[in-house]
């Protein structure tokens, strides 16, 4: 049974947009590299782009804040967080909807910081009568957080005016629930106002969504608990927002982690694939590419068991699990 994880948004804190001058820098780099080449067909151009241009010239990490869909072949939609990436997710779901048939969406919310809920007012399926939306979380004020962001003067349409059947469902950290064909286990994480990671299991496969989570590996019990949470996971989406030096100095207790700690925890847990997530909004694509390559190199030189695959999330990325 193969699952597909689709990244609709991976940026931390605030959505970022590219602009004309950045786009022109990329075009110049691409055209310069293409001089004296004979690139006739579209296929030849794509081959050239993939083989000879830097990742950060041909890709953008994006864009939108956290929203990650897990497709497992079931009839319901399952996703983590409702950041600004939820807008495109919703539009795609609407376009794929069968006429006269309603859809069910299950969202697992890490916490109520704005970047993780800001997409919901723009999630078009929530305006369609007959659709069912279930929003799961462990914060006691889960519903209040969503209702409040759509209250005047912040937004013109109140949550109660959205036509879909929207319900909030409380989960408890450490207690597994059976939802949409998954066994889902939330875990409390260190973050301002608390956040929760989710471990999804189905047919022997496991995916861990763990963002907005600070780690203090010198605390033995903390480390042991997270190694267990990540244990043998097929994929770990991990908050790698800051550099290690920042997380242990100026940005200590800011509630985020680093690529280096991600590699260490996944190595200890025997996880198979680490996906760097919740990118710092001030990082340009080139910096994020360097961070990704550095993480791969660190894994390579410190490997003791099975190799750990490392990727860096970008909007539109699809990962087979």
């Amino acid at each position, binding site marked *: 049974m193969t699952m597909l994880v689709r990244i609709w948004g991976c940026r931390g804190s605030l959505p970022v947009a590219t602009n004309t001058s950045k786009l022109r820098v990329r075009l110049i780099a691409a055209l310069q590299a293409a001089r004296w080449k004979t690139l006739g067909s579209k296929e030849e151009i794509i081959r050239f782009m993939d083989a000879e241009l830097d990742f950060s010239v041909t890709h953008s990490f994006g864009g939108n804040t956290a929203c990650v869909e897990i497709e497992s072949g079931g009839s319901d939609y399952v996703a983590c967080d409702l950041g600004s990436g939820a807008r495109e997710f919703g539009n795609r779901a609407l376009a794929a909807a069968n006429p006269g048939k309603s859809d069910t969406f299950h969202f697992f919310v890490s916490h109520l910081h704005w970047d993780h809920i800001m997409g919901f007012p723009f999630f078009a399926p929530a305006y369609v009568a007959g659709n069912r939306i279930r929003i799961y979380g462990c914060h006691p004020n889960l519903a209040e957080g969503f209702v409040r962001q759509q209250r005047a003067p912040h937004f013109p349409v109140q949550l109660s005016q959205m036509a879909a059947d929207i319900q909030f469902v409380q989960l408890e950290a450490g207690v597994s629930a059976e939802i949409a064909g998954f066994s889902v286990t939330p875990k409390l994480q260190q973050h301002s106002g608390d956040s929760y990671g989710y471990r999804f299991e189905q047919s022997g496969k496991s995916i861990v969504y763990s963002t907005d989570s600070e780690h203090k*590996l*010198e605390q033995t019990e903390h480390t042991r608990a997270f190694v267990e949470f990540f244990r043998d996971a097929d994929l770990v989406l991990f908050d790698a927002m800051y*550099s*290690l030096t920042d997380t242990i100095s100026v940005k200590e207790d800011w509630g985020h982690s680093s690529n280096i700690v991600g590699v*260490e925890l996944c190595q200890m847990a025997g996880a198979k694939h680490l996906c760097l997530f919740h990118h710092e909004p001030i990082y340009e694509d080139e910096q994020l590419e360097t961070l990704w390559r550095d993480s791969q190199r660190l894994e390579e030189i*410190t490997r003791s068991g099975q190799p750990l695959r490392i990727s860096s999330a970008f909007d539109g990325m699809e990962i087979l699990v």
Partner: protein
Amino acid sequence: MDHSNAAALQAALEPHLPDCKPGGYRIVLDLSRLSYISSAGLRILMITSRQIKSQQGVIAVAAMQPVVREIFDISKFTLVLKCFDTVGEALAQTAP
């Protein structure tokens, strides 16, 4: 050096910190027998270095094995601590 023994490094360094200041000692860590260092070990080096810098003292690391050197590069710890190829070079270069 990982989260299981980082505290021991901190305990070993602690007694030497008060005298690591102008007119006192310099600390040079000989890393030639260190084969790996994790974030927990780097954190202790960061804390130690910050304390020493606050009292105008000098701390340096020397003789790193290639893997440790690369971990320092990737984690940007080469910007946190003065790094030297040999202990002799570290002592010479940090002499007042």
